[in-house]
Each structure stands twice: as structure tokens, then as C-alpha cells.
């Protein structure tokens, strides 16, 4: 693939269709500017600031934009909150929809046929495979991203974190926690 992609790139550059410096900048954006650390900031703010949580519930796109996170694949954000009684899990069965501005690009498993096929029919089995055994009395809500709405799971705040500031809280938040394949 390396040679085939190189050939396509040089063709498109020769034709003037793409600017090679733009390609470098795009790669840099996805490797360094977006990623789950952004989403973790959103979660930590939601845990720490009740007014922010209210705004997140009312209009997640606007609330998340307050932290400077917006752009393609984050045009219409919805936050779904885990509680002791409800666990949320996000999937895109049709392709690979994922909230890029807050989580970056999705991991390979999220885009793979095994996850896409099973998350909707066997979410508890999927969670168990990720090491999370959910009690029967916890309700599982699966969100299949079939349109341009992008879902961010707000995990339950772990016990014993009352004294922590936002930075310390953000450090506890994992990517899988915000997809819903893990609990914190």
C-alpha cells in the first residue's frame, strides 16, 4: 500500500489537486490536536461544574465548544450520562461515526466488523469482553450513530474523588469510558 498511496499522492500533487503541506498539517491535526484528552476535559468539567453539566444537557455542542472543541464529526454533539442504574454504549453499525473533536480518530476495533455487528445485539457480552461485568439490574442503552449526531458518554464519577481538581479528574477518564466499553 505504501507505494500505491505514494503514487496517488504524487499524481494529485502533480495535477495541483492537493497541497502536500496541507497533508502534513492534516496528519498533525489528527495525531496531536484532537484525541481523548479533549473528551476527558469535557467529562472532568461536567463532574466539577453543575452549571456546565446543565448546559451540556441542554446543548452539548455549545457546551463542548466552550472548551474549544468543535469541527468535523462534532457538529451535533449529545452527551449521555452513566449512572448507577444506566450504562451507555456508543457504536456506528453502518460505518465508523465517532466524535473526532473530543475523542480523535476511532481505534481499529471500533471500526471493525466484530464490534459494529455485536454492540447492538450483545452489548453485555461486548462489555464483558472489555472486562466490565454489568449487573443484570443495570439498564444498557446502546446509541447507534446512524446520522450526524455524535454521542459522548459521561462516565460516572469514581468514588473517593471529591477533593480532586479538574486536571486530576481528567486524568482518570479513559477513551473507552467515553465510548462506553468500560466503566471508570
Amino acid at each position, binding site marked *: *500500500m505504501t507505494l*500505491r*498511496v*505514494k*503514487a*496517488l499522492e*504524487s*499524481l*494529485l500533487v*502533480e*495535477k*495541483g*489537486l*492537493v*497541497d502536500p503541506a*496541507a*497533508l*502534513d498539517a*492534516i*496528519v498533525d491535526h*489528527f*495525531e496531536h490536536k484532537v*484525541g481523548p484528552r479533549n473528551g476527558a476535559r469535557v467529562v472532568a468539567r461536567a463532574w466539577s461544574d453543575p452549571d456546565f453539566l446543565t448546559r451540556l444537557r441542554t446543548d452539548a455542542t455549545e457546551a463542548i*465548544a466552550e472548551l474549544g472543541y*468543535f*469541527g468535523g464529526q462534532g*457538529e*451535533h454533539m*449529545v452527551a449521555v450520562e452513566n449512572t448507577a442504574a444506566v450504562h451507555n454504549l456508543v457504536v456506528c*453499525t*453502518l*460505518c465508523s461515526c465517532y466524535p473526532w*473533536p473530543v475523542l480523535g*480518530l476511532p*481505534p*481499529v*476495533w471500533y*471500526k*471493525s*466488523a*466484530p464490534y*459494529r*455487528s*455485536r454492540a*447492538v*445485539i450483545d*452489548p*453485555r457480552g461486548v462489555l464483558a*469482553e*472489555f472486562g466490565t461485568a454489568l449487573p*443484570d439490574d443495570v*439498564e*444498557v*442503552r*446502546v446509541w*447507534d450513530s446512524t*446520522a*450526524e*449526531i455524535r454521542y459522548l458518554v459521561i462516565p460516572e464519577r469514581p468514588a473517593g474523588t471529591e477533593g480532586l481538581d479538574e486536571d486530576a479528574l481528567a486524568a482518570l477518564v479513559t477513551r*473507552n469510558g467515553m465510548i462506553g466499553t468500560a466503566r471508570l
Partner: protein
Amino acid sequence: MGGMAGMGPIAPEADEPVFHHAWEARVHALTVASPTRGNIDAGRHERELIPGPEYLAMSYYEKWFRSLSRLLVKRGAATEQELASGRADPASAKATPNLPAAEVTARLTRRGSYLREGPAATFAIGDRVRARNLNPPGHTRLPRYARGHEGVIVAQRGTHVFPDANAHGRGEDPHPLYTVRFTARELWGPDASPRDSVHLDLWEPYLERA
């Protein structure tokens, strides 16, 4: 492929890099920078046109590479001969890049929207609806596993670009979009958990009153 069995185990990878190979990063960047960018539905449909057995055997960015190559030809941005040779036809005019380097950050962080002016919502929150049994030959975002099943409207999302039209160059044809909750038992039968549910974002043409 939602609900299909036999796709094998999920294989999470520890400390997964954003891209596994430099060529993957370039394919991603080429797709974002290419003149074919701009109609997300057409891009998704192009990947769906890859025959099933091949689709399942290809890696994610192999699919992106294939669909980018096909779209470049379909849009007249490059010819099959150019793709095969890797050299521009000397007779072709030199283009201007769709996305110059200086505009990358602004483009990637642009606050876009798929909301459009259009018909108002017919269904209200709490209404029972059935996903129609539609099997169009082209692009749709109504998953097969929901077709014919009943659910409840849990949110109105405004009037959005309709992929079934937009993917095929028939304009944006906006329609009201809803989040619909289907119980796991409705979708998967009596062995499913009585508590669990699946939520889908569905456009009004996919739905009828139940």
C-alpha cells in the same frame, strides 16, 4: 451489519497509535484534502459499493483508498489511466488545491451543521413509530436490523440533510431527524434483556406511525 453473528472476536490493542502506517495517515489526509470532499454521504456510499467479501477482507484505510480513487474518477478529477500510471495526463489543466495548507486548521475546526430549513417534525416525543421495511438499492442510513420494528421517539433533532438523496447527487432534501428508542426485546426477541434498548437517529421518511 448490526446484529450479524460470526464476525469473530473484538481485538482491542493496547496503546494503539492514531495511524499504524504512514500510508494510512496519507490516505486519511488525501481524503480530507481531496476535491471529492464535501459530500460525506457520497463518500460513505462509495465505501458501501465495495463488494461484501472484499469489504470484510480490507483494512479500514484500504477501503478509504479504494473509495477515494473511485470518487476522483467519478468526479472527473483524475482518469483511470492517470491512476494506473501515477502520472498526470500532459494535456490536463493544472488545478488549484481545494485545501491549501494555510487553511487546514480553519477547515478542520469549522463549526459546520447538517441542520437545514425544511419540513417541520410530524412526530412528537413519546409517539410510537415503526421503522419502515425499506430496501433501497442505493445509500440509506436505516439499518437492516431496525426495519419493520416499533420504537418510541425520544428526541427531535431538527431537520437534517437526508443521506439517501444527498449520496446520489439528488440534493440535500432535508427531513426531520429523530432519535428512536427500540427495546432490545423488540429487536432481538425474548432472549434479550428486558431492560436494554438501542437508540437510532432516523429521518422521518424511514418512519411510520405505529
